[in-house]
């Protein structure tokens, strides 16, 4: 099997997503997230150069500036202010969940051969494998971590997986929509970050598994 360059980059992104699962140190998580998103921006730029769709260069620049620089920087400053260094505790120990993530990568490869309609010559199987593996890593992150900030990172990783799927399988959605998505993600992270401050202030922790006051 010969990997195209963009497929290799997509795999790099998937591996960084799995590495996020491997540590509960929040700043390391954010650095990995930043690298992971840079790989995705590189995939986008590479595909733009293959297909000569110029709008993808713009999208790649947007992904790089907003998702791999601004958002990690913002979240970093949030955790610095609320003074939380590590995730209080994961439901599945970090090394174990990293191995689960690696297992998911294999599973994604099998699933990606089953997606109906995506078995044509032009379709990149490894691209969708990487995208799906990133999606699973994000879900795993959200399910196993307790700190509110890990939930945000999990959401961002899921969103990246979906974005990578769109880029590798459909060569990107129209420019207006991609830009709208970027803006939306940025605003969502801002709102969640502000809420995070308040959670720390009123509860004195950011452990979302303890937010169970409301029930019937």
């Amino acid at each position, binding site marked *: 099997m010969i990997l195209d360059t963009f497929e290799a980059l997509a795999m790099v992104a998937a591996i960084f997503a799995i590495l996020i699962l491997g540590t509960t140190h929040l700043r390391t998580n954010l650095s990995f997230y930043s690298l992971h998103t840079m790989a995705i921006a590189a995939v986008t730029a590479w595909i733009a150069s293959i297909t000569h769709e110029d709008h993808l260069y713009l999208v790649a620049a947007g992904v790089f500036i907003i998702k791999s620089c601004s958002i990690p920087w913002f979240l970093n400053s949030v955790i610095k202010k609320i003074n939380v260094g590590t995730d209080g505790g994961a439901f599945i120990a970090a090394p174990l969940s990293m191995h689960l993530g690696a297992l998911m990568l294999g599973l994604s490869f099998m699933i990606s051969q089953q*997606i*109906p*309609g*995506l078995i*044509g010559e032009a379709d990149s199987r490894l691209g969708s494998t990487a995208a799906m593996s990133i*999606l699973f890593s994000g879900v795993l992150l*959200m399910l196993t971590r307790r700190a*509110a900030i890990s*939930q945000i990172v999990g*959401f961002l990783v*899921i*969103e990246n997986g*979906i974005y990578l*799927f*769109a880029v590798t*399988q*459909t060569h990107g*959605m*129209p420019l*207006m*929509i991609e830009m*709208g*998505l970027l803006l*939306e993600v940025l*605003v*969502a992270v801002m*709102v*969640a970050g502000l*809420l995070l401050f*308040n*959670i720390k202030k*009123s*509860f004195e922790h950011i452990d*979302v598994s303890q*937010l169970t*006051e*409301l029930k*019937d």
Partner: protein
Amino acid sequence: MNDLLYLTALPASLALLSLFIRDVKLTRKLVPVLIWWQLGIVALVLHPCLINGQRMEFTSGLAVDKMGTYFILLATFVVSCCITHADYFFAAAEAHGDAYEDQQLRLFYASVNLFLLAMTSVFLCDNLGYLWIAIEATTLSSAPLVYFEKNKFALEATWKYLIVCSVGIAFALLGTVFIFAASQRGTLAVPTLNISELISQAQTLNFPLLRLGFIFCLIGYGTKAGIFPLHTWLPDAHAESPAPASAMLSGSLLNCALFGIWKVSSIINAAQPHSHVHQLVAILGTVTVVAASLLLLRQHNFKRLWAYSSIENVGLMVFAIGLGSGPLFFLQALNHSLAKVALFLLTGNIIQASGTKKLNKMHGVIEDCPIWALLVTLAAFAVTGAPPFGAFVAEMSMLSLSMTDERWALALIMTVAIAISFVAICAHVGKVILGPAKQGFKKFQPIRASIIPALLVLGTLVLGLVVNTEAWSGPWSMIK
């Protein structure tokens, strides 16, 4: 393009203004008047669509049909009612000595206007990508409304709301990507996300991918609408936000997500009528109604009661979408919005006056305030679908339609579930209304607080009396 500006200019500028006007009392009076004015503008701009049923195209990807017009009018109407009542709500809070800070109120009014803007754009979208962006924007703009009270409970509710809805809706984005891929890999191979184009060339799309996309969109937008296993955020958010905000969430936000489901399901219906995957929608609706009616039996919180009743009504609307009937979907949405907004506003009044949300601490509201007791009873009947209110016509037509559609098993289950929820709501409301008064009411203004709810109850009553099933399926069937 100009029309688009007319539709959005007022809420956008009001959102900015309400942040900067120093005197909050002025904002409280000014915003309601201007939002009613906005209702007039919307009706005026969209009247060709309203009268002739002609589609209005603004730019590529933004267009509105008759159904969208009705939903925009409904959303604007709901927001105007709630914001008008909010003035009384804040005045009563002040009179009881727990006034809100000015900054809090400024943020409230700014968010309400952004929320209205986001909801209006949901119904203007003719593009699945824009639709996703607009629906996510409704989540983000309404999060400050849920967090309004700024206590621990509100914080927890807002966090759940934001995370559950954002992740849920991320799956709708995946579904959108699948549908885009379906158009690329169809026989025509024209990549598009434009909903009307997708519908017109539905036969040529790659069906397996379209089906996959539909399922993901159904789950994603279903989370936002509160269908059964994914409803967890809904009772929390509705119960912890202030009454006018809960009314807006229930009366207009849920309709936005359901509108998304409707759009996607009309694509798959055009591609292959009566496909197995589309049967899923009606089943999901039935499951939601059954689950909600059982959960309604055991409720301890007045506002959570109405939140679960909203889930039940969402189930009914999803059922109508599953039957492929646009008019019935809108009729149910209209009646639910009118009755539920009235209920949330009245419940807010009662909670403010009695100082408790707990159902077992409230008794004999009829002694404290007969008008409110009467209105709550009428609105509760309206929301459960009892005759002669409008929801009865909608639910009856839905059930008879599913009987002729040979889905009698679903209709049967649905009937039992509706009966259970009727009994549950009657029992809870009966305990609150009747008997000797237990709680001491603080000072309140019964008439001023009842105007909007009374009008809404009257509205759904008139709908029930005027609208009959034949008229509904006649000229209205154009929507379909």
